[in-house]
């Protein structure tokens, strides 16, 4: 075996920053649903907990432990305050995927005697969908609710799906692709009336829009730090302690940390970061959501004012401030990304994913595969500027125009050919 100490890879060509004539740093990061840049104020608060204050929060017999524990408890309070919970209702995890797994598997196993039916929606994150699929193999029955054209769950569908064996409803707060915000309070009310536990994957919503676990009757909620300008690898789960008291069977066995629900030594610097990120979000949300939705609308107007046949995917009314998901008809998403390679965004195109299937979220809205292949997700965040928005709009418009000149579909559409009526000689491979 080699004894070389490997260091992190150096910045590659793509990550080296360039600056435009008017001072915009390239590439521009506009993929804030994937992850966010750590806020410098968060980093500052985390730093002492790597070296000086390195104690194990579970060490009860010396100040190293006490200092770490104190920091962890402050974080718990800060997270709880952001969502209207109490500190004791917050347990720490490694992130959103673990939180979703623990919530769903933990509730399923704990309440199995009561029933075996779980309700979720087709547009959920894979961390929820794959967990549900896993439970199906173990004898649980799962209803995957469809969504309406705007991406929202139909409350009547939910009502109809509930039966006397339903123990859990898990519906996300805001969607990671289209930013659509589900009617949490209404879902929570239905669940409470029927004595069903309501879990929400709130990772995209928390810190961006108000989420109140009591007003919305949320019983369990998944949180992660890196979507709200905190560090990666740390998350939390809100677990209601009263009215009703929710219990979970742990998925990790060990020292019984976190009220027995999640064993493992706490990631103290990460937890400090998550807490600070929540405190900043609580403080800044009113101004920040106005600023970010203003930037989003500016981008939308600049693009839609200059291009025809551009479609917004998902509700424009019930939506995260920073999300814009648009399909550019007759242009394939990956080729568009290639043309705007100084801007970091995502596409729902098949070619950008390993599965060769276009986005299942867009398909669930009834967006045709052709338009799903043409979609781009812009995720605007705290550090984006108006100058960046203008630059992005210009680059998108000129690239779409160029690619449409190259597109046989655009040409056919302009000639009046109905593309739906064409008998396509699809690949025979």
């Amino acid at each position: 075996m080699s004894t070389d100490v490997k260091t992190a890879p150096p910045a590659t060509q793509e990550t080296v920053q360039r600056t435009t004539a008017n001072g915009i740093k390239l590439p521009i990061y506009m993929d804030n649903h994937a992850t966010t840049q750590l806020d410098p104020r968060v980093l500052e608060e985390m730093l002492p907990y790597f070296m000086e204050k390195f104690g194990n929060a579970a060490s009860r017999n010396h100040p190293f432990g006490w200092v770490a524990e104190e920091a962890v408890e402050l974080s718990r309070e800060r997270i709880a305050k952001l969502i209207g919970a109490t500190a004791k209702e917050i347990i720490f995890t490694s992130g959103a995927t673990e939180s979703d797994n623990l919530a769903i598997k933990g509730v399923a196993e704990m309440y199995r005697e009561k029933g075996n039916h779980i309700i979720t929606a087709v547009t959920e994150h894979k961390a929820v969908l794959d967990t549900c699929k896993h439970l199906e193999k173990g004898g649980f029955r799962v209803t995957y609710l469809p969504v309406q054209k705007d991406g929202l769950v139909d409350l009547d569908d939910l009502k109809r799906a509930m039966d006397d064996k339903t123990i859990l409803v898990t519906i996300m707060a805001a969607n990671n692709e289209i930013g659509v915000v589900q009617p949490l309070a209404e879902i929570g009310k239905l669940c409470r009336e029927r004595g069903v536990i309501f879990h929400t994957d709130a990772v995209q919503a928390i810190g961006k829009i108000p989420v109140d676990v009591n007003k919305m009757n949320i019983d369990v909620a998944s949180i992660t730090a890196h979507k709200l300008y905190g560090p990666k690898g740390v998350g939390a789960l809100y677990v209601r302690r009263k009215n009703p008291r929710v219990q979970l069977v742990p998925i990790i066995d060990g020292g019984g940390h976190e009220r027995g629900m999640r064993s493992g030594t706490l990631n103290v610097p990460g937890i400090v970061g998550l807490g600070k990120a929540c405190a900043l979000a609580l403080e800044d949300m009113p101004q920040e959501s106005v600023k970010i939705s203003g930037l989003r609308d500016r981008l939308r107007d600049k693009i839609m004012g200059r291009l025809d046949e551009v479609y917004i995917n998902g509700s424009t009314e019930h939506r995260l401030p920073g999300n814009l998901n648009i399909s550019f008809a007759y242009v394939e998403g990956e080729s568009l990304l290639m043309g705007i390679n100084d801007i970091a965004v995502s596409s729902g195109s098949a070619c950008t994913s390993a599965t060769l299937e276009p986005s299942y979220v867009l398909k669930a809205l009834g967006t045709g595969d052709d338009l799903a292949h043409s979609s781009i997700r812009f995720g605007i965040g705290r550090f984006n500027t108006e100058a960046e928005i203008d630059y992005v709009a210009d680059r998108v418009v000129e690239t779409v125009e160029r690619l449409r000149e190259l597109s046989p579909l655009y040409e056919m559409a302009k000639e009046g050919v109905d593309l739906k009526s064409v008998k396509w000689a699809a690949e025979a491979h």
Partner: protein
Amino acid sequence: MSYSDKVIDHYNHPRNVGSMDKSSTDVGTGLVGAPECGDVMKLQIKVNPETSVIEDAKFKTFGCGSAIASSSLATEWVKGKTIDEALAIKNTEIVKELALPPVKIHCSVLAEDAIRAAIGDWKKKQEATKPVGVQAAQ
């Protein structure tokens, strides 16, 4: 995904973009792929009926960068070739020239299909315009 320099070059400077009159008897048009699959290529050739040499080629493509590059390259390669020489172009040669990764091989297959479809269309037109006697002699 990282692209080869050749794919990037074809994407940034596609060769022979455009359209020819598809009703013209010496123009063959191939339209392959489907919007739902994320790839549609239109490749057109203009053939000299005396020599069967492809004198001009044009394309338009809806698809990823590799699909654009594959069809752009196909137009370059068929120009100046006879129909039979063009039919001998294999998708594997396109894969090699553009250094396409395995997930993009379907783009090269589609480009080969487009060449064949364009030639097929041209041949059909030739047969339709030929005198009956000549057709029977073939």
